[in-house]
């Protein structure tokens, strides 16, 4: 395709990407370098229904003057990135200097909010992604073998977890695993432990979130693989059968190599999606035991009365960097394959 034709096709998409993706990211990056102006505080008497007290309040007029002068706030450089709520460089240096052994170092780093969230986010990503691919593939192969008459209904039911809004899906499961819910009560009677609660222990909460993640995303992998299975070349398959390959060998040596590019595609999508895990943490009220990077951003923007924009922006930038690092190996592999072909 001549470059000119290519450009005339791509420019609307390029403009949209610039406006709605590139510019917002630049503005978030800019925001992350600034913090609020130093607040001008005044002490005065505050009275209400419950009596009077001496209280501190912000001198709004003085602050308005400061903001008019410098609307973005105070320049802070990378200070927000390195503070205790993010990369915590000072704290980490101190931990290495004063800890006695490796497990103490690990425990103390795991106690820092950013690293705590990062560990859960990475665990979720690396446990859920492969399981989704494997489970999706198994379902696809199984559904492909179902008699044609049953295929429609079976496919429909396999897709249900993906049709449900993530927050609603997690809330439904949340009440099912309640100790009075059907799953929670069943587990209690199976293990004969009336105090067993999936919501109480951090480990069980993590497992619940992983299971939810697989349950919710497996249909996506299933649909992609199922579509791929329809295009597996029949003649290759038949010649494998003539050569005496059994069902497992046909899957291992024909189907899987043929579907490999699809697996790469799913891995790419799932790595991105799972690294941004957020809804199940809210739906399962799991913040006590599991926080993710996206949850930290939400918390900065929503928890306090006045949002911490700088802090949220810094976490956002770190999340973007995280996604890029995660995707690099997959993208590099794609690039190599592309080069080999051309």
């Amino acid at each position, binding site marked *: 395709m001549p470059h000119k034709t290519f450009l005339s096709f791509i420019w609307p998409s390029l403009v949209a990407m610039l406006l709605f993706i590139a510019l917002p990211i630049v503005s978030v990056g800019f925001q992350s370098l600034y913090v609020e102006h130093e607040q001008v505080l005044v002490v005065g008497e505050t009275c209400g229904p*419950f009596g009077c007290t001496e209280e501190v*309040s912000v001198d*709004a007029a003085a602050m308005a003057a400061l903001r008019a002068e410098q609307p973005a706030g105070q320049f802070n450089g990378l200070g927000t990135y390195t503070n205790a709520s993010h990369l915590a460089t000072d704290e980490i240096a101190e931990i290495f200097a004063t800890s006695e052994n490796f497990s103490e170092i690990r425990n103390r780093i795991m106690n820092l909010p950013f690293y705590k969230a990062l560990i859960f986010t990475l665990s979720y990503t690396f446990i859920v992604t492969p399981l989704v691919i494997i489970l999706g593939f198994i379902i696809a192969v199984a559904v492909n073998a179902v008699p044609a008459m049953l295929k429609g209904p079976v496919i429909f039911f396999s897709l249900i977890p993906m049709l449900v809004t993530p927050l609603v899906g997690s809330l439904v499961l949340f009440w099912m695993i309640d*100790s009075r819910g059907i799953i929670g009560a069943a587990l209690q009677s199976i293990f004969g432990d009336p105090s067993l609660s999936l*919501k109480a222990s951090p480990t069980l909460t993590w497992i619940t979130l992983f299971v939810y993640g697989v349950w919710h995303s497996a249909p996506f992998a299933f649909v992609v693989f199922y579509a791929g299975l329809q295009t597996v070349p029949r003649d290759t398959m038949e010649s494998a059968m003539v050569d005496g390959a059994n069902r497992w060998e046909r899957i291992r040596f024909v189907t899987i190599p043929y579907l490999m590019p699809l697996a790469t595609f799913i891995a790419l999508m799932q790595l991105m999606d799972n690294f941004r895990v957020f809804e199940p943490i809210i739906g399962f009220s799991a913040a006590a035991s599991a926080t993710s990077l996206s949850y930290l951003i939400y918390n900065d923007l929503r928890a306090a*009365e006045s949002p911490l924009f700088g802090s949220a922006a810094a976490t956002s930038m770190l999340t973007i960097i995280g996604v890029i690092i995660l995707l690099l190996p997959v993208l590099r592999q794609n690039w190599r394959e592309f080069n080999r072909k051309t």
Partner: protein
Amino acid sequence: MTSNLKFASAASALLLASTAAHADCGIESGSVRILSNDFAALHAVADWASKCASDTVEVTRNQTEEHKNIQVPALSIDPATYTVAVVATNSIVPLMNDDLIRPLDELVAEHGQQLQDSQLIRVDGKIMAIAFMANSQHLFYREDVLAENGIDVPSTYEEMFAAAEQLRAAGYETPISSSYMPGWNLAAEFVNTYLGTGNDFFVPGTAELAINNEDGMAVLETMKRMTEYMSNDWTTFDANAQTPIWEADEVVLAVNWGSRASAYIADDSPAPEIAAATAFAASPAIGDGTTPTAALWWDGFTIAKNISDEDAEASFIAMMNGISPEMMAENQDLAVWLIDGYEPTRAATGVIDGLTKGARPYPMLPYMGLLHTALGDNLSEYLQGSESAEQAMADIEAAYTTAATEAGFIR
């Protein structure tokens, strides 16, 4: 045809009559746009404010739980999207920090004859808000179960834990519940309990944190003991989650919001016997103190700064109708009203008990929200037993100091 005409003119006459009946608030013209939280008492207030609507006066409202998140952007523009922002002790702070609400002294002098002095929220001598209801957490207890086991209503935490032991022996495995879900709820419980010690959260006059002391440690210890008598699922308890376990007869002593009390004892409760036996008292005191461990909150209204004086006056008069004694007479049990002539109902006994026993107000400080967030994020590991109290305290201090520095309150 003629009958149709007659009908039409009769209908329009009726319409005219009804608008005339509504337009008795004494507003000439203006626009009243109310933003508020979404619960029954505030619906009643907005309903009564809406009665001032007429051909020349427009009254609209947006009642949503998201009010806290939209109020600052909505009032920042000129003219503001809303003329009235209904706020509480904590949510007025961002509006004052950004200078988005106007002093009400003149309007109060002109139109506020019905107000009591205690309803006026004065900051630095200027009236910034008009309070109309009070709220606080307090003890919910089962009169029947306590009487059966010969237990007095606990007035201190020691008595509460002794009662819980006794109830456990009587077959209630998890006799206590409280909103311990990490985040806003758990932090509110720390604030409540710490207020009971009589100590302050900050070094007076500064944003420097001052909770790392004996009282702070005692609060942590008390909270941990509370969790021992709660269901394992306490990490998911908020005000909503507490209701079903109360109705399921699993809990005998609960700490919950006063604004929930009327629903607990409502006639249409799914467990009528439990509703009939539910009673309320002030939160228990901590240590040797007598102060109930509960923060007092007020709900009130503010008037936006970025609107015309005409709209501001119209809004104030409409809200005076919204919080009139006549409104209260129809909605006695929806809230603990601060309005002149209020007679407490059964649902109000808990909040009133706390008030008379000297509970302290939630601090109306510009940096209190940051501390609240830091508490909400850093208490659960200690309560779950994976961290020491000292470490939890250090984490809270670190999180608060980082946030307060970013927000410009600490150098």
